[in-house]
């Protein structure tokens, strides 16, 4: 009887797509291991380029709102990413920005320190292993005797998903913790009440520090910043108290402090806690006050030890931050 009821329940239609991504997010979906059977029992995967042979025309042929849940991972780097994002939005009931890149731009977003021209010059002309005397670069349209060849347009900027389409939920992480994905997935399958739209799901409200098991004191004082390789971590004291930059205070919990448990400081992939628009600015605010000096020159010398503030504090969030890109 129970079995029959289960069979009657219509299966969820699910899609997974990658924009400008490394593929790690798609792998994190596969990381459900044997739970994949539960997923497949409850959902049909109707579109998933990394694993299944569907074509864009199949997606186009689906009626609007046909897909129940889409996990879009990766940032928007070119016109293909944007086109499919818009198409998926049209075909999907619940669109989730899955992973750091779709959430705030992620690692590909660091390209916003450069322009399209700089990137093309470097990649197609200047790299040490490139020989391209005629300086041939990819063109959007290229005419050949057989007709026209078309490549997607490479944008000057990287954008997170919500800068091109309306996003229902964000599931952060690089990649998101698989357990969190399963929780969210099961909640949708079981028809539980979902949180209000445009919120982060699959992560906690509090910061990493709240979850972190390392020994902490109230007043952190930093006289010197160290890169992780410059200091021997004692394995139990707060990284910041040892002078190693850890983005825990301005990063959402939910990952289970995986990096910290592996003795590496937090890099901020889970994005900012609720109500924080710019994680890097918050982190700079926090870390600057920990500097143990009042003399302007001494302060400057200590800050000089932070090699690359923009890259460190906005490692996963540059396109989603207030300034979004380098002004040129």
């Amino acid at each position, binding site marked *: 009887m129970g079995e029959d009821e289960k069979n009657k329940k219509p299966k969820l239609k699910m899609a997974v797509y990658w924009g400008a991504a490394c593929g790690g997010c798609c792998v994190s979906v596969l990381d459900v291991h044997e739970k994949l059977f539960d997923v497949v029992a409850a959902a049909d995967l109707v579109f998933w380029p990394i694993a299944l042979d569907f074509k864009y025309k199949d997606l186009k042929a689906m009626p609007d709102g046909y897909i129940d849940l889409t996990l879009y991972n990766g940032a928007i780097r070119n016109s293909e990413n944007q086109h499919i994002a818009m198409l998926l939005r049209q075909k999907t009931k619940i669109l989730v920005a899955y992973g750091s890149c779709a959430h705030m731009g992620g690692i590909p977003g660091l390209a916003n320190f450069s322009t399209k021209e700089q990137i093309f010059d470097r990649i197609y002309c200047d790299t040490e292993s490139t020989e391209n005397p005629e300086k041939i670069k990819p063109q959007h349209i290229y005419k050949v005797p057989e007709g026209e060849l078309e490549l997607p347009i490479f944008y000057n900027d990287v*954008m997170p998903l919500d800068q091109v389409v309306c996003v229902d939920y964000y599931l952060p992480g690089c990649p998101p913790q698989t357990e969190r994905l399963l929780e969210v997935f099961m909640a949708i399958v079981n028809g539980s009440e979902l949180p209000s739209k445009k919120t982060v799901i699959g992560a906690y409200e509090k910061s990493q520090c709240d979850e972190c098991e390392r020994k902490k004191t109230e007043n952190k004082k930093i006289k010197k910043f160290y890169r992780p390789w410059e200091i021997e971590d004692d394995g139990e004291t707060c990284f910041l108290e040892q002078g190693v930059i850890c983005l825990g205070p301005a990063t959402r919990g939910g990952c289970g402090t995986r990096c910290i448990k592996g003795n590496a400081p937090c890099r901020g992939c889970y994005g900012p806690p609720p109500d924080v628009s710019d994680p890097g600015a918050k982190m700079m605010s926090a870390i600057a006050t920990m500097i143990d000096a009042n003399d302007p020159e001494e302060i400057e010398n200590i800050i000089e030890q932070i090699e690359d503030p923009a890259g460190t504090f906005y490692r996963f969030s540059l396109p989603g931050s207030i300034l979004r890109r380098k002004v040129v």
Partner: protein
Amino acid sequence: MDFKPTIVSFLCNWCSYTGADLAGTSRMKYAPNIRIIRVMCSGRIEPTFILKAFREGADGVLICGCHPGDCHYHEGNYKCLRRFHLIQKYIQQMGINKDRLRLDWVSASEGKQFAELADEMTETIKELGPCEVKNTMEKLDKIC
């Protein structure tokens, strides 16, 4: 047309705002480009405020607080000083000239100094020209 810079200025309630008030009540003349926002302490000025000012079209940001040692909350201005140096390093990486962000100390009796500072900052920004942050953002918004 003459470039008229917009300078957002965060003044602490206890010293600098009173100093600016003194400049006003003493009828001192200074450049009208400063837009004053009063905060309780220079230590309250988050980096987010500064970045948001640039994003919304400020050509410069001026922060004023109590002189070192004079903070109403003991060490708010030192916290501001530490943040200021870090933010300055960050905005340079983002392609914003560091002179567009300035921190100075103005006490409640330094109306004249405030007026001079406002003139000086306006001159600096006029020389630098308009800040391109807002334009860049508007162009970005047009892509999608």
